């Protein structure tokens, strides 16, 4: 499966990853090479519906067990680039709130 420049741009948009224009061609070539390599999995003749989940190995699913160790809002936001009163600051998400 060859990836072209337009497909590389589409994947980058999905990944929320800004790429320089001159990087798109290189990314397309590298991803195509990797996809060509992983196509060897077709040789395995995997059956549809074949198990895709490893059997639990000593770590069965369980509910969370809170023990009181939590971060205060100020601790959680201390490493953020912009925060105020225990909240993370971001640009406006919803605009024109006036009816």
């Amino acid at each position, binding site marked *: 499966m060859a990836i072209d420049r337009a497909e590389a741009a589409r994947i980058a948009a999905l*990944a*929320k990853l*800004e790429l320089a224009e001159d990087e798109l061609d290189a990314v397309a070539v590298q991803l195509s090479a*990797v996809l060509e390599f992983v196509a060897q*999995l077709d040789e395995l003749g*995997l059956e549809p519906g074949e198990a*895709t*989940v490893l059997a639990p190995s000593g770590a069965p699913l*369980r509910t969370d067990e809170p023990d009181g160790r939590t971060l205060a809002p100020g601790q959680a936001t201390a490493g953020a*680039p912009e925060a105020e009163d225990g909240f993370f600051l971001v640009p406006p998400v919803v605009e024109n709130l006036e009816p």
Partner: protein
Amino acid sequence: MTATAPWQRSAREIATAVRAGRLAPAEVAEAGFAGPGARWEREVHAVLAADVSARAVAAAAAPRDRSLAGVPVLVKDNLCTVDHPTTCGSRILEGWRSPYDATVVRRLREAGAVLVGKGNMDEFAMGSSTEFSAYGPTRNPHDLTRVPGGSSGGPAAAVAYGLVPIALGSDTGGSVRQPAAFCGVYGLKPTYGRLSRYGLVAFGSSLDQVGVFARHVGDVAAVYEALAGPDPFDASSRCGAPPDVRDWTAGVRGLRFGWPENLWREGVDGAIVAALERAASSLERAGAIRVPFEFLPGRYAVATYYLLATAEASSNLARFDGVRYGLRHRAADLGELYSGTRGRGFGPEVRRRILLGTYALSSGYHDQYYGKASAARTRIAAEYRAAFGHGDFMLLPATPTLPFRLGEKTGDPLAMYLSDVFTLGANLAGIPGLSVPMGLEPGGLPVGVQLLGPADSEPVLLRAARAIEMDGEPARIASAEEREPAWPGSR
């Protein structure tokens, strides 16, 4: 005993001396930096952060009656620590400090160890050479023109050249075992879930496991004993008591080890093949039985691994978006803030893997790539289970080549990925693996081999490694307690 300076001693010797009051933790914590660190760290660049005052505080707080009392330890920079930044080798987390310690870091401190700094790594643990660190590469202390392996290259190199006796790394596809082999030290990747991943910045959650570097088998056992066990903060941690590794000197008499020599009939360096034969002979002299058999899971493991690991990475790294951590690209629009931050903050290999993982998970391609790789993984795991019908453990290469030169593979992602061909199967199968140093080849480069066993076979792997360690000729496999650290540039 020829080694006398604190930085030359094993972790267990240091702890014994500290418990007896013959050494002070502060003295030991500084010794590695004042000795080999002062001379070689500038060239090797194993350390990303090491703060004298944080070291002094940690040494003063270290309990002096515990198993690792006063033992200096370096941890890979993707393990959260309150007293040093945690950057994962990335610009996107430059200067970021975690508000909590990873569970393994907390347990190290409780065992008396002194955290002395953070080790260099490929950005977000994606790489096999430590050349993809945003803060510059680490060099192999045995030959500064060569890579130390990766992604835990900093911790491996630091142990090899004597800065610290033990270090922690993380192993998602071989990132502890491959650098251990390249640097000539032991590197243990435990059974999936035996060491808590809480506070390990996630890369591939179904594959990641914290691992241990040391210059002596007994030190690996001591660290494993201090760290292993369930953690209520890690839902993937294995329930029940971890296997008891205190009998690491018990020997291997009567144990059977698989010998899948078809794996190295071609494409493996001759020095590694010779080291495998020496290791097998050591095991046989100690009473173990060699069982040749054919084993072929490596053929599809690389493709399977790189689809699953990148898919998981694309999901895990979505959290680095300029809102909660570190770097932010200022933009009026939230979407531009996300993509601008990520485009500028992530390096080329991380961007490449996020893109591949995003593609493998995207609508229309999920079944073709992620689904197929998941099914292939279950087959590979079954093949490993069947392989251990041939023996209690198996002996195989850790890497196909000796340490390669800086820059040799950075332009060819696939060539870099293929250097993990012998290690990533253990991550896909969730089983433990131990890289065992076999001394230096005639050109002076370290050679390593690998032991793999079924889940919870850490005690057997350590016993086998000890049998090889005990049988080592000092010049070829620096043996047990008299092992000298590597001196960079000494060749």
